[in-house]
Every structure is written in C-alpha cells, then in structure tokens.
C-alpha cells in the first residue's frame, strides 16, 4: 500500500486566469512519470491535496476528467497562504498532488438516469469533470438527458468559458443554460439567480437526479425549487467543503456526525445529510 502522505510530483503545464479580478486561476498539471499517471485513477467528484513545499497543502476538487489522460486540472480561488502561493506559480514549476481522495459523484447510480447539473461560481469544477466524463463518446449512452444550469455574478466569473461557449453550447447531446445575476451588455443567455432559472428551464422526468454545487446561499435557495420540481432527497446530490488536512479520515477535523467528509464524502445525497447533525 502506498504511503498516503506521499504526494505525486506534478509539473505546471499551463495556467489560465479565469476572472478579470485575477483571483481565479485554472492550473493544468502533468504527471512527471508515466507510472504516476497510470496509478492516479480517479472518478469525477474526487479531490486532491495540492502542496507547495515550505507552505503547506490544501484540498481542491479535480476539474479534469479521467479521459484527459496524463494530466489533472484544478481551478483555484486565491483566499489565503497556499492558494496565494499557487497563484504565484509559473509554467514549469513543480507541485505535489496527493490523491485521488473522497468518494466522487455516484456514477453508478447516475447511469440510465436523466441528470440535472446545477452549479454556481467557482464550485463548478467537479461538475465540469462529471459532464466531461458523460459526453465522452464511450460513456454518453450510459446516461439519459443532461441539463446544465450554471450561474455566476457576471460573465467575467464563468469558469472554462471557451469550452462552455464554443463546445458545450453547440452540442446537441446536452442542454446548457448559462446565467448571470444581472443583465450585462452583450450577454445573450439567461439572466437571474440559479434557483429561478432552474425553476424556469428544468422540466425533470420522474427518475431524474440533480447534482448541485455552489455557494451555501445558492444551495439553500435551490433545494426548495428542486423539491417543488419533484426531486426527492435521495435524488439530490451535493459536494461539501470542510476544513481538511489528511484527506484520509485520520486527522479528525472534517466530520459531520460519524461521517468524515474527506473519506465518506465529499459527495452526499440530501437524504444522507438529513440524517446527520446539521454541523457543516
């Protein structure tokens, strides 16, 4: 068994600044050895701990999809010391990556179902991974219709703009609804908060499953809308964030009741969360 504290070395191949405020960057990392690339087997929704020597480590959702071989991508908002140091990185720098960690999206339960993917802000990362996985030609037939609602404060905040607008918008095997909070010049898509847009555009089937990721307020107001649209708690999934260190259920800081978010999560159904103390 591998030492769970030992990171893979990865090289920064490309850095995309995602927002005009420059506080959001997406990092494309490549494995230094082919063997590492083969050993790192993950599913959408899992995360990894990225480390910079002398600074520390922090958890980030994996934004790339397993089919994107040999590399991983992460979108990081600058909020503190490690994220600050990540934002200073340049092409060619080396970082440590420990993972994959956590349970990931429940791929098997999603098979054969219509999916409603709802994201807000920079929490769209692992949802991007999931959609990318689903639209992979060899996987697409395993899933039903895919509707995506992705909201942001303004157009500048949207992650993966190029891919979303040039590719996803033009595909006929998914429907994507981009929305911004307030009207903005030149914006051709939806306007309004995620819950309202969801209510307007989503006509879910009986067995549809919703996957929701975003800031707490968005989740708070989206859940009642989903209930109204007929989603039962066992058909709504979300991914939680807690303060984490080890990522492997040992350091004791990320529990909600008897569940460790790092190991038993970060993805939970609302039905599971309703059974746990509301301490998150």
């Amino acid at each position, binding site marked *: 068994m591998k030492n*769970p504290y030992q*990171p893979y070395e990865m090289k920064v191949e490309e850095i995309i600044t995602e927002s005009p405020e420059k506080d959001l960057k997406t990092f494309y990392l490549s494995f230094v050895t082919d063997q590492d690339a083969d050993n790192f087997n993950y599913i959408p929704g899992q995360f990894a701990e990225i*480390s910079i020597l002398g600074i520390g480590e922090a958890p980030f959702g994996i934004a790339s999809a397993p089919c994107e071989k040999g590399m991983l991508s992460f979108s990081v908002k600058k909020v503190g010391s490690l994220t600050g140091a990540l934002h200073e990185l340049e092409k060619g720098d080396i970082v440590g990556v420990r993972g994959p960690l956590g349970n990931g999206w429940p791929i098997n339960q999603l098979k054969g179902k219509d999916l409603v993917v709802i994201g807000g802000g920079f929490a769209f990362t692992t949802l991007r991974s999931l959609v990318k996985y689903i639209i992979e030609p060899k996987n697409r037939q395993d899933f039903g219709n895919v509707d995506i609602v992705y909201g942001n404060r303004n157009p500048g905040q949207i992650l993966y703009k190029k891919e979303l607008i040039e590719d996803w918008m033009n595909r006929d095997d998914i429907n994507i609804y981009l929305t911004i909070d307030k009207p903005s010049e030149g914006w051709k898509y939806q306007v309004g908060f995620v819950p309202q847009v969801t209510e307007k555009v989503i006509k879910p089937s009986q067995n549809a499953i919703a996957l929701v990721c975003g800031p707490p307020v968005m989740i708070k107001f989206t859940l009642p809308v989903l209930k109204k649209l007929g989603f039962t708690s066992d058909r709504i999934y979300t991914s939680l964030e*807690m303060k984490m260190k080890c990522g492997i259920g040992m350091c004791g800081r990320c*529990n909600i*009741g*008897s569940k460790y978010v790092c190991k038993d999560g970060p993805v939970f159904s609302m039905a599971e969360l309703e059974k746990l103390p509301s301490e998150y």
Partner: protein
Amino acid sequence: MSKYIMFGEELLQWLQNLAKESKVLAPVKEEYGYTFAEWDKKSLPGDDYRNTLKPPKDLFFPQHETLLKYEKIKGENPLVEVPDIPEDKRVIFGIRPCDASSLVLLDNIFMGEDYVDPYYEARRSNTLIVSLVCRTRGKSCFCEDLFSTKGSDILIIKVDGNYLVEILTYRGEAAFKGIGSKEADEKIVKKADKLKRTQEEVLDKDIFEKLRTIYDNPIWKQLQEKCVNCGVCTFLCPTCHCFDITDDKRGKKVRSWDSCMFASFTKQASGHNPRPTGTERLRQRIMHKFYYFPEKYHDIACVGCGRCVEKCPVNLDIRQVIEKIRGCLDEKSLSAI
C-alpha cells in the same frame, strides 16, 4: 492460552532477557510523573505508579513526527522522501490495561481498510504489549474492567506478592518461549478470578445510543460553561487522534497533535466555522467518544483512564458530564455542575 506464575526475581530476569534483543520501555518516574522511557533493567514500577502522564499513543503516534523530508534544489525538481521509520523491536512493559485497550481503538483509525498509516503501523507491528493490572482504581479512574485483556499480548496480575502471567497472543507466547516458569496452579487462577469478579461497576455507559436525541439540547451549553478550551483533555486522552500537518520552513512536513477543542480546528478559509463556540466543541468531544465512534467502530472511545479528569484546569469531570447527560436523557432536572 497458558498462564504462568512468577516470582519478582523471575519476572526481572525474563525482562532482562527480552531487553537483550528488544528495547524495553517501562514507566519511569520523572519530575512531573511517570513516563514511558527505556527501562533501567533492574527495577519494577513502584507502588505509587498509577499511570503515565502522557498516554501511550505517544509511542505510536508521537506528539510531533516528521512525515516527509524535502529539499528544494535550484533549477531541479525538489527531493521529497519518507524518513526512516524505526524498525527496532520494542516491548512496552507495565502499561495499564485501559491504555493497552486504547491502542486497539486507535488501530481502527490508523490501520483501516482503505488507508494505513505506515508510521503507526510499523511501530505497532514491532511492539510487544505487556500490561500490568492495577491493584485498585485511582480516584479519577473509571475503567470498565480492571483486568481487561484488550490490546495486551501478555497481562500480568499481582497475586499474593507473585505475578500471574496470562499469555494472550501468539506474539506473547513467542516472547515467553523457553522460560522455565511454573504453569499457574488452579488455586492461584481461582484467586485471580475472584479478584476479577469482585470489582465494582463504576460508570454505567449503556446510555449512549440515545445521545443523538439530545444533540440540540441546551445541556451542552450548560456543560461547557467553565471549559476554557485549553485542549488538555484531548492531548492527554489515549484515544484522541486528531492531528495537524504543517510544513516547517526547514525541509520537513510535520504532523502534530491537534484538538477539536480549538476554534481554528474546523475554521474554513471562507471564515465559516461549523463549530464556532465551546458548546459545539464540547458536544463534538463527547459525541465523538460515545456516539460517533461507536457508530463506526462498535466501541466507545473512552477507556476510563481518568487523565482528562486529573489534568483539566477547571475540574470539568467527564464522569459528571456523563451523569448530567444521563439525567438529561432521563429527563430529570438539570443543575449546573
């Protein structure tokens, strides 16, 4: 497995033999109390030995430990390596049965199905546990069973000035091979059994499955009123396993004990804290030991060693906390501790 009877001299000799090929750690008296240190190869713990100040988790999951060493080299990839994990054979002699059983609880965490902590595992697999039963409970102790065999390879009970040695595992048996000691006769075994039967129940801990029902009860606020969130109760607890991982700036990634009693423990980068006050933190400590841990591993995470009772600066006594909770579960009236 077998039981033997030994005189003090024989026991010493056996330990001295073990010390030839293993490092023997035993309770040694220091300024502030007993600590596990290299055995002096001549004496057995004195009558005033109750328990060590620091719990034995320190010998397997030390208070500070280097997980990785690294070196940054200009223009090259950094060098990251795992430090040597000591492989020498160890014997812990004179550990109390409560503490020995705490190791079995920690095994659930550090040697789980999905992840194994290699540092902890190496030390666990190299260490023989020889425990020594207390003659009576200390004033802060409340273990369920003075004679608990959980976690011990060998359990030693003092009976009539001699030592009844119970071999509990194959590892224990191997360490006892070739010793010409007498098998314990029926009389002495009966005597020990009688001691075991006469021990009284200290705390009735069967209430805990109902703990979830008082999660939102105001009792937690009341219980934590005098707690200063110093974390001593968790640092000294043999079953508490929380830790932090930090980079020192000089090439080491270090793991250190941490505590759920600190606000920073769960504070997120956004500033949001799911356990913002002492109330949530005390509830976490108690719920974890008596409800969450049992839910996961089918055993409560308190062995009754009494360290938290003894060392809490404001005398917040976990036994009283349990009694208050029992009262609350019985819907009896509450009064401040």
